[in-house]
């Protein structure tokens, strides 16, 4: 039974190999292969998820290699956390793949797209299933590769090619940190097993607390890269150059959540040595706040969503940093659904209108009722309006922040929640309400796209219920079965709940006032708060800052080296050359009159000899070989005595 779990990532992998070799031949049918594979994965994963709901844990592993006496294992490990991820990845993934059939309909590299999506599914599933850091890191790099391939899927576009490179290189920085963290962990404790990241195991290594704290922070560095946390968040907005289903699947629902998953997995390590907790909570809330701030003014529909994603990921990270294990993972699940839905809705809008600029849209709700309604549901969910899923999970996080030692996290996150509601409804009102601002040939997307939208909408609406008091916090008890360290227990907090509802609705109302009732207010605010507006619009000039510091520094270093080459070395060479020229002019006379006579004589003698010696150079390979052999013979002869 346990071994059956190996099939879960196998199906997409098989689909990938089939499509990469026979994709051209299959043509449009290749989508069926990918859909079938992901549905099979879903079906195979279902019993495991069901078993995990019942409190079971599945584990199996086998030895892959043995290097220097240490076995490197492959295997599977399914506890409640990975079961949740399995559920999210297979269900959201399947829906998005189905959706892509409609979205990528006219693309000439249609089969290739599904091949990559399948490869991504395989990598992501094996990441979720991996029982140790070896397999985890391999899958981690593989999802990064898929992200790179898919962002640059339309590599003819210069911006897409550059975005893919940017994403790859930026996440690489985090990956290096992760790799170093894994190695540090391994050399300190000698384990790669994820299940060993528990106080019971790590307690024996208390004397290495500094190394382990550093390992925790380095591992978190991997999450910073992959989950687009400050200061490595800059790749995610640019990653929107990829096709929208990719943004939904990889850059909203699953891959970027892998960083959160990683932090949740190493929760035991982090809480054991709590210095890292502060770092994590700070970076998480900072990212959440900052990205929400950026989201306020963006005009590209996908970029708003991208910043929203970064912000929500910051929420999860902050929750984990505040020991809110259940809160962070719960938000991870609900966010996967509503954010995927938002992206797919945005994709549908882009598909229907042909533009991404929200200033050109407006009043789309009538022409695209399915898209508009589902988008609205998702926006309500993310804004934290009860009883949709986002409310319950965000509320959990706020409670965790409220109960932590430092109240500042609570204030920052609450402000972020309000901003989230505001910018989401800014997006909704600008896109779907009001009057059309430009003549666009709008049409509703086909059923193959709207049906996944509705399924995801149902998911975003109801998936909060298991974590709510109505079901007696079932989800929290379930997920805490996989916990590695000690997390805080939090009760319901009516104060926090009321404040969060108030903030959410307030944000919505404010957006309605500004963008629906008095559109003039928007420009007024833009002028009145010009520095803030510019700061948000230009994303705090962080990209420029990186350009000016890190990238410039590298360029500068390169320039310096080039300058050194040109000036010092070349100068020396040139000076030497000039000097030589002058000298040689003098020597020339000596040469021609005195030396040449001598040389010519020597040359004649050499020619005479070499015309004899060149006969050795026969060009016949067997002669060479024979002489080689004679040499060996001579060596042998002298060695023997």
């Amino acid at each position: 039974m346990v071994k059956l779990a190996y099939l879960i990532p196998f199906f997409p992998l098989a689909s990938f190999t089939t499509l990469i070799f026979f994709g051209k031949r299959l043509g449009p049918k290749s989508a069926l292969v990918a859909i079938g594979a992901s549905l099979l994965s879903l079906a195979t994963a279902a019993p495991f998820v069901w078993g995990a709901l019942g409190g079971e844990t599945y584990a199996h592993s086998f030895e892959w290699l043995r290097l220097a006496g240490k076995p490197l294992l492959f295997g599977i490990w399914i506890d409640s956390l990975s079961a949740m991820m399995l559920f999210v990845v297979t269900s959201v993934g399947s829906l998005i793949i189905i959706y892509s059939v409609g979205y990528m309909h006219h693309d000439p590299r249609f089969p290739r797209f599904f091949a990559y999506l399948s490869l991504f599914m395989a990598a992501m599933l094996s990441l979720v299933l991996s029982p140790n850091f070896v397999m985890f890191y391999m899958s981690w790099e593989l999802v990064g590769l898929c992200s790179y391939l898919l962002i640059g899927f339309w590599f003819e576009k210069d911006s897409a090619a550059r975005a893919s490179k940017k994403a790859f290189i930026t996440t690489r920085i985090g990956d290096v940190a992760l790799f170093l963290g894994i190695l540090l962990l391994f050399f300190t404790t000698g384990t790669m097993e994820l299940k060993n990241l528990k106080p019971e195991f790590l307690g024996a290594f208390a004397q290495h607390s500094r190394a382990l704290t550093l390992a925790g922070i380095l591992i978190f560095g991997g999450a910073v890269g992959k989950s687009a946390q400050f200061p490595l968040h800059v790749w995610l907005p640019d990653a929107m150059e990829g096709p929208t289903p990719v943004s939904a699947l990889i850059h909203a629902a699953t891959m970027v959540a892998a960083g959160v998953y990683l932090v949740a997995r190493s929760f035991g390590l982090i809480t054991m040595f709590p210095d890292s907790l502060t770092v994590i909570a700070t970076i998480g809330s900072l990212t959440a706040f900052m990205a929400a701030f950026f989201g306020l003014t963006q005009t590209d529909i996908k970029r708003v969503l991208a910043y929203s994603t970064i912000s929500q990921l910051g929420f999860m990270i902050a929750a984990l940093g505040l020991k809110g294990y259940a809160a962070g993972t719960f938000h991870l699940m609900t966010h996967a659904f509503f954010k995927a839905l938002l992206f797919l809705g945005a994709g549908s809008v882009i598909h229907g209108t042909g533009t991404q600029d929200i200033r050109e849209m407006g009043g789309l709700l009538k022409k695209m009722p399915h898209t508009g309604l589902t988008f609205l549901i998702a926006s309500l969910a993310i804004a934290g309006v009860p009883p949709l899923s986002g409310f319950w999970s965000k509320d959990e996080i706020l409670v965790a922040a409220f109960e932590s030692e430092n109240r500042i996290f609570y204030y920052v996150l609450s402000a972020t929640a309000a901003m989230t509601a505001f910018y989401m409804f800014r997006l909704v009102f600008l896109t779907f309400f009001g009057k059309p601002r430009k003549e666009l040939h709008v049409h509703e997307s086909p059923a193959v796209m709207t049906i996944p939208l509705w399924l995801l909408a149902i998911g975003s609406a109801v998936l909060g219920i298991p974590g709510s008091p109505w079901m007696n916090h079932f989800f929290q008890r379930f997920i805490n079965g996989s916990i590695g360290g000690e997390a805080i227990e939090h009760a319901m907090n009516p104060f926090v709940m009321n404040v969060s509802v108030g903030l959410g609705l307030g944000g919505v109302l404010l957006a309605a006032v500004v963008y629906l009732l008095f559109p003039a207010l928007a420009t007024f605010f833009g002028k009145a708060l010009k520095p803030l507006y510019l700061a948000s619009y230009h994303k705090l000039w962080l990209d420029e800052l990186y350009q000016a510091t890190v990238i410039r520094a590298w360029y500068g270093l390169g320039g310096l080296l080039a300058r050194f080459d040109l000036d010092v070395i070349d100068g020396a060479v040139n000076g030497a050359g000039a000097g030589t020229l002058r000298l040689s002019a003098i020597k020339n006379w000596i040469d021609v009159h005195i030396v040449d006579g001598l040389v010519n004589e020597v040359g004649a003698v050499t020619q005479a000899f070499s015309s004899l010696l060149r006969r050795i150079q026969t060009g016949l390979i067997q002669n060479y070989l024979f002489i080689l052999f004679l040499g060996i013979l001579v060596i042998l002869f002298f060695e023997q005595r």
Partner: protein
Amino acid sequence: MPIPLEHILIFSTLLFSIGLYGVLVRRNVIGILISIELILNAVNVNLIAFSRVHTLNPEMGQVFAIFVIALAALAATVGLAIVLALYRVKQTIYADEVNLLKW
């Protein structure tokens, strides 16, 4: 082992020398390839015979003999492809008629 190791080693030396003689003397390129097979076989005989040297584990020799056999098959394939290409360029398969490297 029924016969002493030394005899087998001398046998393989002889085999090697005969193969080398073929490589040095044969004019036909395919003949040279055939002789190379003899040399490789001499190596294999040694590998198998050394299996009984005390300090080594017994699989080692056989495993490497398998590797050598695989590489010999490869060498034959690539060698014949080169012969084919050579024939196409120079219209000959005699090694001493090919002296493109000559001074």
